[in-house]
């Protein structure tokens, strides 16, 4: 076991443990805070994968914006969110069964793939993922069209969110 593997196992256990707390916590504010810790663990996973920019974006966008938006929404609907009563469906075991089947099926499918146990090649010297990513996002031969479509989608979501949540009275 190398140090990297030990770090990975600790972070993975942290991510999965807080993920389970997200879906089982009775208090929704606690669930949102557990989501923050899950997202932070995933950011550490990105850093382990040498995707530093994605790790920073994860912290800034997910934790800084999306998780805080969730906490705002929980507080705006707080009156209805008493912690009494069941937090889960009556057929929760069916959901657990489906989720376990999906997990087992995914692992079974991936096991037959030849690259399953492959290890990563070393990064080339002087490798700059951020500049490559920036070029890929704006170069016409690569991904400029999905990039522009994503910006149109964000604009549409902005307008839609304002329209849907607007109080007409």
């Amino acid at each position, binding site marked *: 076991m190398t140090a990297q593997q030990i770090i990975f196992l600790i972070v993975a256990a942290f991510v999965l443990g807080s993920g389970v707390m997200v879906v089982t916590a009775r208090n929704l504010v606690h669930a949102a805070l557990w989501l923050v810790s899950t997202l932070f663990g995933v950011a550490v996973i990105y850093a382990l994968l040498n995707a530093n920019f994605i790790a920073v974006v994860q912290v800034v966008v997910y934790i800084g914006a999306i998780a805080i938006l969730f906490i705002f929404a929980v507080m705006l609907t707080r009156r209805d969110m008493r912690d009494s009563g069941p937090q889960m469906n009556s057929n929760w075991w069916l959901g657990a069964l489906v*989720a376990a089947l999906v997990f087992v099926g995914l692992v079974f499918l991936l096991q037959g793939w030849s690259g399953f146990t492959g290890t990563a090649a070393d990064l080339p010297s002087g490798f700059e993922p951020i500049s490559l990513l920036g070029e890929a996002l704006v170069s016409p031969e690569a991904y400029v069209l999905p990039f522009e479509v994503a910006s149109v989608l964000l604009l549409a979501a902005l307008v839609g969110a304002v329209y849907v949540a607007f109080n007409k009275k």
Partner: protein
Amino acid sequence: MIPQSWYLILAAALFGIGMFGVLTRRNMIAILLGVELMLNAVNINLVSFWRYSDVLNMSGQVFSVIVFAVTAAEVSVGLALVISAYRRRNTVIANDLDMLKF
């Protein structure tokens, strides 16, 4: 070095946990929290496939950046819907919102 299977199994487990939350929680905001976990699992997969194949091909990272944008759009519209439904019906329990049912 860490084999790629570790990342893929972690992502599959996180996806399963998120799917459990989506299928079983009664509160609409909790359902959206489950969707967040599933999207994060997908992102781990995309970034690990970038790292373990040709690192000069940035497709994996570009896709994960676009997943970030889609997630932001999904959460803003989803939470707006939840707040709107709460204003009109005074509930955030998915079972109580059955106006479209006969």
